[in-house]
């Protein structure tokens, strides 16, 4: 691993739709797995003190390496490496990228943005360069809800540039007025007590727009301080970022990052539609978006992609962690099986499947991930469920 990776990617939240707090049953299931692993190792260790008949002949002090105390107990515990329980969901979508040339870029402001912002504030300290770029995918609440809880928004020295499709900018602005400096009197204080007068950071907006469909009429408007054509990459230092449209009920962008030849593709909330009519306008739009995603993902080093459902769940044969199924056509999310097909066809080295359904329980997520591990061995490519609080270096 290089000392200073080209791209260091922090996943703060990968949960779809809503944040998930582990239930008591899930906590107990996780503890049981850890307990089993620990006990298996402890008894393997005790075998060292067993005679030919398996009888243990040792004092507690000999096993522990000293009299029983907090220190010796913890020292004994540290001999054994027990994997921590995997956290697949947690906060809603927020990813941060640190580039080798010192830039911080955030993808989406789900509830994970609160934790992400704490890390940024701690990293920046009192330094002079205090610019953050946020790239938004789409306007839905689970991609914006963390914005007004983020410490980075409350320091007047901070300059926060938000680049996104117009509806994302509007979703942030309509309740907070951070770009337009205006909140409708009927909205002020309704969704959040906060608004631009209480959020002293400097906010700028850059609307990513398809100029061929809607060319800008001027340099800016009350919502967008500037415009950027979707066909052109954004450049932040040595990082090139290509936005592109994917398929979702709201206008939605995915992004391809490239830095010194390393490629990361971020694609949350995209549906490869599985309708019956290939001529249906939505079906065609979905397939066109999928083709764009494939083109941008060829030979990528890391891909994060929405895989909220299994096909049987999408088709309504079964619910998510429930027997009651309902069709998920046009819910805006893809099937795990389609993600694997796409990632294999595109030779993506490492695929993280995210935007987890909040109803899928912890044990099932682990069960799926174990199968993905076996599929990875078969394909020679790595597939796994995305986890919160993970970091990848490219």
């Amino acid at each position, binding site marked *: 691993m290089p000392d200073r990776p080209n791209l260091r990617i922090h996943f703060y939240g990968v949960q779809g739709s809503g944040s998930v707090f582990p239930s008591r049953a899930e906590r107990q299931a996780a503890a049981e*797995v850890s307990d*089993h692993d620990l006990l298996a190792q402890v008894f393997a260790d005790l075998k060292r003190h067993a005679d030919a008949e398996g009888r243990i002949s040792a004092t507690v002090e000999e096993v522990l390496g000293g009299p029983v105390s907090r220190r010796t107990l913890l020292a004994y515990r540290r001999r054994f490496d027990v994997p921590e329980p995997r956290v697949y969901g947690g906060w809603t979508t927020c990813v941060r990228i640190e580039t080798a040339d010192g830039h911080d870029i955030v993808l989406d402001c789900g509830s994970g943005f609160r934790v992400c912002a704490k890390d940024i504030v701690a990293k920046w300290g009192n330094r002079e360069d205090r610019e953050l770029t946020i790239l938004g995918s789409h306007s839905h609440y689970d991609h914006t809800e963390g914005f007004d809880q983020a410490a980075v928004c409350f320091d007047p020295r901070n300059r926060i540039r938000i680049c996104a499709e117009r509806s994302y900018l509007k979703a942030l602005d309509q309740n907070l007025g951070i770009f337009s400096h205006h909140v409708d009197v009927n909205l002020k204080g309704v969704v959040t007590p906060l608004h631009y007068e209480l959020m002293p950071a400097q906010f700028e907006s850059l609307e990513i727009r398809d100029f061929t469909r809607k060319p800008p009429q001027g340099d800016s408007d009350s919502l967008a301080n500037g415009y950027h054509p979707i066909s052109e990459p954004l450049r932040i230092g040595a990082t090139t970022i290509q936005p592109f449209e994917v398929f979702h009920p709201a206008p939605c962008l995915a992004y391809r990052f490239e830095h010194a030849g390393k490629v990361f593709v971020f694609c949350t909330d995209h549906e490869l539609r599985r309708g019956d009519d290939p001529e249906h306008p939505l079906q065609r739009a979905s397939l066109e978006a999928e083709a764009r995603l494939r083109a941008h993902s060829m030979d990528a080093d890391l891909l994060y992609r929405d895989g909220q459902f*299994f*096909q*049987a*769940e999408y088709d309504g*044969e*079964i*619910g998510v*962690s*429930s*027997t009651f199924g309902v069709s998920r056509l046009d819910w805006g999310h893809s099937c*795990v*099986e389609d993600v*694997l097909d796409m990632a294999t066809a595109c030779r993506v080295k490492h695929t993280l499947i995210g935007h987890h359904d909040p109803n899928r*329980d912890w*044990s*099932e997520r*682990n*069960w*799926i991930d*174990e*199968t*993905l591990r*076996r*599929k990875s061995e*078969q394909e020679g490519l790595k597939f796994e469920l995305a986890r919160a609080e993970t970091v990848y270096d490219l």
Partner: protein
Amino acid sequence: MVGKKIAMLGMWGVGKTSLVQQYVHSLYSEKYHASLGVKVDKKTVQRADGGQMMLMLWDIAGAEDHFSVPLSYVRGAAGYLLVMDGTRPETLDAAVELVETVETGIGRLPFVAVINKSDLDWTFGEADVRARFSDQDPLILPSSARTGENVEAAFLALAEQL
């Protein structure tokens, strides 16, 4: 026509998908593809009493160490095929755990125990399986998804119990 949900249960790699593919599509692949989640296939069968029954075959990914098959996939099943790999004794242990999980979480359901891969050398057999399931006393069949041995017979035998 009566429709019945049948769950395919067993540890990973025992041949659940191959049995379904052989039964429904008369296909067999030498290459192992780990199943993911669940895939549903359908097949109409003629019962001994002359009636027809639509079997909805829920091919559920195998149980893993620590993480068994989620019961939400099994609920609503009228019965299940419990599949073991005769070359891997740990698949018998896993089968015992699966039956315990189903009976604790859902209740007792009819099942047929299938010892798959009869075309290979087994390390355990029918007597071992019978000893572990003496309480349930299921029908136990040797099978091979590769040769087709007892594939149809296993599904039909289960259908007759539903």
